[in-house]
């Protein structure tokens, strides 16, 4: 579906608004909804000296009430549904939800009596970051996409290699 001219201008306006509101500093609350903790390990590495996400104006906060962005990992275990909803509702608007890792995107577990199998079943997701786990670089890219600093790259990728063995 190609957006009409009105939709395109609205999208541009929204993008400028997001950049103005989240462009300088953004506080992140992470949420583990039953992940194997490797996504958390990679998220943890973002604060390490090599990635140092504070230089980009991103900060982790322990309180959802201070958070602009909810970084959710794990396949959304049903036992965690209430806590996830409460964390989301406690956040002040405007807020962004980022699903992190293949479990959160619905790639590893199917919906069953124990888990929803994806974050989208419970929370309105704005940005999807694939990977198992997504590397800190992929997370930095995803956070930059979420605040509108970088454009997403995936719609242009085909995952088809040319005959010379080149990438996507």
């Amino acid at each position, binding site marked *: 579906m190609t957006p009409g001219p009105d939709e395109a201008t609205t999208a541009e306006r929204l993008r400028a608004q997001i950049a103005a509101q989240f462009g300088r500093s953004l506080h992140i609350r992470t949420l583990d909804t039953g992940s194997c903790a490797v996504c958390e390990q990679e998220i943890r590495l973002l604060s390490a*000296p*090599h*990635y*140092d996400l504070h*230089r980009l104006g991103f900060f982790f906060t322990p309180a959802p009430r201070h958070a602009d962005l909810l970084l959710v990992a794990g396949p959304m275990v049903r036992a965690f549904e209430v806590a996830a909803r409460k964390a989301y509702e406690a956040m002040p608007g405007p807020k962004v939800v980022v699903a992190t890792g*293949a479990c959160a*995107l*619905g*790639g*590893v577990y*199917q919906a069953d009596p124990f888990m929803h199998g994806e974050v*989208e079943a419970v929370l309105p*997701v*704005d*940005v*999807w*970051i*694939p*990977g*198992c786990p*997504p*590397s800190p*670089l*992929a997370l*930095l*890219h*995803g956070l*930059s*996409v*979420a605040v509108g*600093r*970088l454009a*997403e*790259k*995936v*719609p242009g*990728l*085909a*995952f*088809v*290699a*040319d*005959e010379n*063995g080149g*990438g*996507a």
Partner: protein
Amino acid sequence: MPLWFARGLRRGVVTTRYPARPDGSAVALPTPPAFRPLLLTREIVDRMIAQCPGTALSRAADTLVFDAGSCTACGRCARVAPHAVTPSGEFELAATTRSALIKMVPILGERR
């Protein structure tokens, strides 16, 4: 010793410049597969689907449906058909729509 670490020790700076500049360590990351449509056949694709531990691969007639969001970059499909599957080298995969991560790869190997 990784080059960035040695350089960082010398300069006293270890922090990456990413996203302003590319990061050298990115080449070592496991990345989702890229497929060669001319070398894919239904039989090969079905074997790859059987090996996929998640739901990243499926087939609709002569199209391989690849969900990059579900891919864990484990490399099992590449082990089934090393000539037809190579690492894509793409790690900047964040998307603002879930459907943008689902890719259709034509299966063209039967036509030869």
